[in-house]
């Protein structure tokens, strides 16, 4: 190794340790060869630091995935089965409405919109705190009544507890109870200035209103979500037919 390279590495290390030697740097910038070597040395340190960070994040990710996999269902299967279910519900609605395609007005209902756009919330494929507690486990097992029962006896309830129980209420078609829970989550976030489960609560609150045929209540929430590209449910709401929702609003007025 040449003396110049050694000096550059010494300088790099001393700078790395927070010891400045401005004079040496002036010398480097005056010498194109040294400047080029200096640049490559910096790239080398960048490569090392990136590799270190990559390994550290990968290690945490592995631990996180291991935690999740115990509770999670295969996401791909869930999506496909949900998709099939949505298609089945849509097909049923079509048949039951007796040629609904001919008369959009008569076929557009809250139940139809709800069935088309509702998808169960899967704990494993979104966010979840580390080790699942009994309520989370019951939720993962789709044991909705146990979720509601555990909620009743829980001493400490955070937004996640309220939200999951709201979802269990929604699955049990207890729409008023679900609405109460989701509103609680949103109110708690407003109070504390956080957004813990806020996006989820907003979307499923809107869905609960639709399920109750109160589209008027759902519309402001849906419009709010549609206006925010960073909202977790932006993509879902963007795909909703607002024309259908307005038809329902109009029908409800009559």
């Amino acid at each position: 190794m040449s003396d110049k390279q050694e000096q550059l590495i010494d300088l790099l290390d001393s700078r790395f340790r927070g010891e400045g030697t401005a004079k040496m740097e002036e010398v480097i910038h005056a010498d194109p060869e040294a400047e080029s070597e200096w640049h490559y040395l910096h790239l080398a340190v960048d490569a090392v630091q990136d590799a270190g960070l990559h390994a550290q994040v990968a290690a945490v990710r592995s631990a996180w995935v291991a935690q999740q996999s115990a509770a999670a269902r295969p996401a791909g299967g869930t999506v496909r089965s949900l998709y099939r279910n949505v298609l089945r519900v849509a097909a049923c609605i079509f048949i039951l409405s007796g040629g609904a395609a001919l008369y959009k007005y008569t076929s557009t209902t809250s139940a139809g919109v709800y069935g088309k756009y509702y998808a169960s919330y899967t704990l494993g494929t979104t966010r979840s705190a580390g080790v699942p507690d009994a309520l989370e486990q019951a939720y993962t097992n789709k044991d909705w009544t146990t979720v509601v029962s555990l909620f009743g006896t829980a001493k400490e309830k955070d937004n996640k507890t309220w939200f999951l129980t709201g979802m269990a209420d929604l699955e049990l078609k207890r729409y008023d109870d679900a609405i109460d829970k989701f509103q609680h989550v949103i109110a708690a976030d407003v109070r504390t200035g956080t957004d813990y489960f806020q996006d989820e609560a907003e979307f499923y609150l809107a869905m609960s209103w639709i399920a109750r045929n109160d589209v008027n209540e759902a519309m402001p929430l849906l419009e709010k979500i549609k206006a925010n590209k960073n909202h977790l449910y932006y993509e879902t709401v963007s795909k909703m037919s607002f024309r259908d929702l307005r038809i329902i609003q109009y029908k409800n007025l009559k």
Partner: protein
Amino acid sequence: MKVAEKYTDVELIAAIGDKKDLNKAILFLYQQYSGTTSSFIIGYGGSRQDAEDVFQETVISFIEIVKKGKFRMEASVKTFLVSVARNIWFNELKKRERSGNREKLYEAARDQKEPDVSQQIGDLEQKRQLREVMNKLGEACQKILLLFYYENLSMKEIVDHLPYENEQVVRNKKYKCLQQLTGLIKSNPFIARQINETAK
């Protein structure tokens, strides 16, 4: 590793800057925000694996940005992370599909009001190339360089971690390893081309 601490945005930034809290901060990022970005990636044609990979890259980029003091808190951490993830995913899509309308469609889906994070993220391809170069380095060299430049250990501390006789041996070895790594970087065609273009 169980439940991560709950952080406000300000606390999270502070935790990222503190070496001993970094793992907790990373876990918090996963618990709080991996679902948000995954939904987006899957919504734009990615697989579950894509979503996980993109989020990992997002976390790495975010930590680098914070450590370099480039995160100015003009947007919330959530908003910023989603923007970083979008940027990384769009870049990945560009790589996968150089032509066709889909790319334009994805580009059109960008929100003009969202923070432009491309400058802060830097050159993703260069990062990938540097990572590959690093992987070509022998294990012993990787360890010694990681201990010095990532773990920030002194020569004396490195002697305790690795089977070298004394600090001078470690110092010499580190010199050689850094020289070797620099040589590998110089011989990488992508990086060499980039540096030549920058020099013009």
